[in-house]
């Protein structure tokens, strides 16, 4: 008798748990999930691409693991969004001071056709000294973009072309796990706390 009651409580409990899990799945990964969830970059440790930095070094996602990272995609022929964002990033790094030395800061081009290693070298030189510029073969850029869930496309304009591209800044912790995005239109004062939080997740999170 008593045992049966416990069993039925147990069944009800399991049912409730199942429902909770189902609702959770529905809202997080299932059809009810906000689109943004699917657009989160994967962890750096799950990415695979080979690029070259502005000093000619071979680099890949593993280059970033071990320190917190801030990554932005753009192109050097971009007159508005890219210099604005790279200027913002440089300002945040100035505000962080010595802490900035604990971060990788990488600008990856979506326009490898024009952004050669030497073009990247010249361009990043105008911003914070911590900034690295990465370029490479078009298919490797495409693999990198896929990992970061970055969208880009070439758009013809009179006398040439421009690039549409994802303009958020991605933050990863020292283990290479994706932490958050600083969206382009997000109030800039939210950026520093996000970066600090990314740096803090180094502590205790180390494996």
């Amino acid at each position, binding site marked *: 008798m008593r045992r049966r009651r416990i069993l039925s409580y147990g069944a009800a409990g399991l049912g409730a748990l199942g429902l909770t899990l189902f609702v959770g799945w529905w809202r997080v990964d299932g059809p009810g999930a906000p689109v943004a969830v699917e657009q989160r970059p994967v962890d750096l440790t799950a990415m695979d691409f080979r690029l070259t930095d502005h000093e000619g070094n071979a680099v890949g996602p593993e280059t970033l693991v071990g320190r917190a990272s801030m990554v932005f995609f753009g192109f050097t022929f971009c007159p508005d969004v890219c210099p604005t964002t790279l200027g913002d990033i440089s300002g945040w790094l100035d505000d962080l001071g010595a802490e900035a030395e604990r971060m990788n800061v990488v600008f990856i081009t979506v326009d490898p056709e024009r952004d050669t290693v030497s073009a990247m070298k010249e361009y990043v030189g105008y911003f*914070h000294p911590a900034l690295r510029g990465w370029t490479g073969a078009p298919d490797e850029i495409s693999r990198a973009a896929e990992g970061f869930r970055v969208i*880009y496309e070439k758009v013809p304009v009179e006398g040439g072309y421009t690039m549409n591209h994802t303009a958020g800044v991605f933050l990863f912790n020292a283990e290479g796990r994706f932490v958050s995005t600083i969206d*382009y239109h997000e109030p800039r004062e939210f950026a520093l706390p996000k970066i600090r939080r990314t740096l803090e997740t180094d502590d205790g999170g180390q494996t």
Partner: protein
Amino acid sequence: MKPVFLSAVTALMLNVSLSAPALAGAEDIIVDGAWSRASIGTSRPGVAYMTIRNTGDEPVTLTEIRTEIAMMPEIHRTSTNEQGVSSMTPAGEIKIEPGETVALEPGGLHAMLMRLQRPMAEGESYKMTLVFSGGGEVVVEVPILGVAARGPEG
């Protein structure tokens, strides 16, 4: 913020030299905070930002921009969609209602300077002419700041 130049006198003189009833609008326009980023060479497009205020009683429409520094200057608009993808498109004519201020600023409307005629060097400046419907013109002196500048103060 240093009000960067708008010479009403210059504007009026330009207007006078144009056809007679062309005065509509431009004399009520005040341009502030103009700045540009330095360019790297001439192959990449340049950019200029400023605020344009209509102090008059009638709407005015910015129809065209001209500058000796670029063969193809054009007002563009950067927009970012829900997926966070930014794109730029020509903004066309910009109507400014009485009392309204239109801001050309990073991430929004901007003067895109295509086909630069010379590198835009930090510390220098150049002139840009704003042309309004009715033919009125305003000439703005645009100072060139660093490549990493984020606003009119640098």
